[in-house]
């Protein structure tokens, strides 16, 4: 599976996406994160594990606590996927111009 497909899949879950967005506010523990969500702490932990596996979140342990934060660089493959089309379309439009010149009126 290409990396961008894995990202799409990981972020397709709305709760997981909300966890991801919430981490945009800063580094948090699971219990920090849990407030504001109606799901259980183990469910949040599961989403964090999936985000970690996808390279979107990193974990730092300090004593008994684990702190989670975003890894924005984890989104790079996604930007790459959209960027392929950013190059693709102008190339195709250039080709279209040539084709139009050759077409019967």
């Amino acid at each position, binding site marked *: *599976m290409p990396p961008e497909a894995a990202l799409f899949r990981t972020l397709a879950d709305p709760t997981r996406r909300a966890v991801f967005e919430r981490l945009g506010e800063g580094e948090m523990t699971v219990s920090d994160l849990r407030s504001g969500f109606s799901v259980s702490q183990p469910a949040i932990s599961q989403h964090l594990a999936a985000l970690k596996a996808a390279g979107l979140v990193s974990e730092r342990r300090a004593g008994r606590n684990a702190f989670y934060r975003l890894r924005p*660089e*984890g*989104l790079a493959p996604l930007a790459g996927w959209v960027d392929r089309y950013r190059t693709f379309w*102008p190339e195709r439009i250039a080709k*279209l111009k040539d084709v139009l010149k050759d*077409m019967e009126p």
Partner: protein
Amino acid sequence: MSLESPLETIVVDTDLDEPPEKVWRALTEPEVLDRWLAEAKDRAEVVESEPGKRLRLTWRDRDADGGLVESEVTFTLTPMITGGTRLRLVHDGFVHTACMSALARLPRALRRPRLANLGGLAWAA
């Protein structure tokens, strides 16, 4: 040709010398389309067509394990005083909009992680 680039949408504007009727043929006649956008055969399906003006397509990409990433491509044709056509292409409506909207809500500086070294970035801003 100009590009506008929020991450979730690709817009390409271009001015063509040919009139809208001719540009329309290039977009819709299979043998002509095949000469500049052969991928359309496998990926595109027309969802809305307003002859000479607007063509909306569903655009499907297949990922490695056969999953589909679905998006939308719209061509809009506007006649110009010169007799030519202003063609606007918009590629958006990614079904994994989920992903795109998560991205859109991140602080702007983080959306293009390749462009900056964010490794040591402090998040508690």
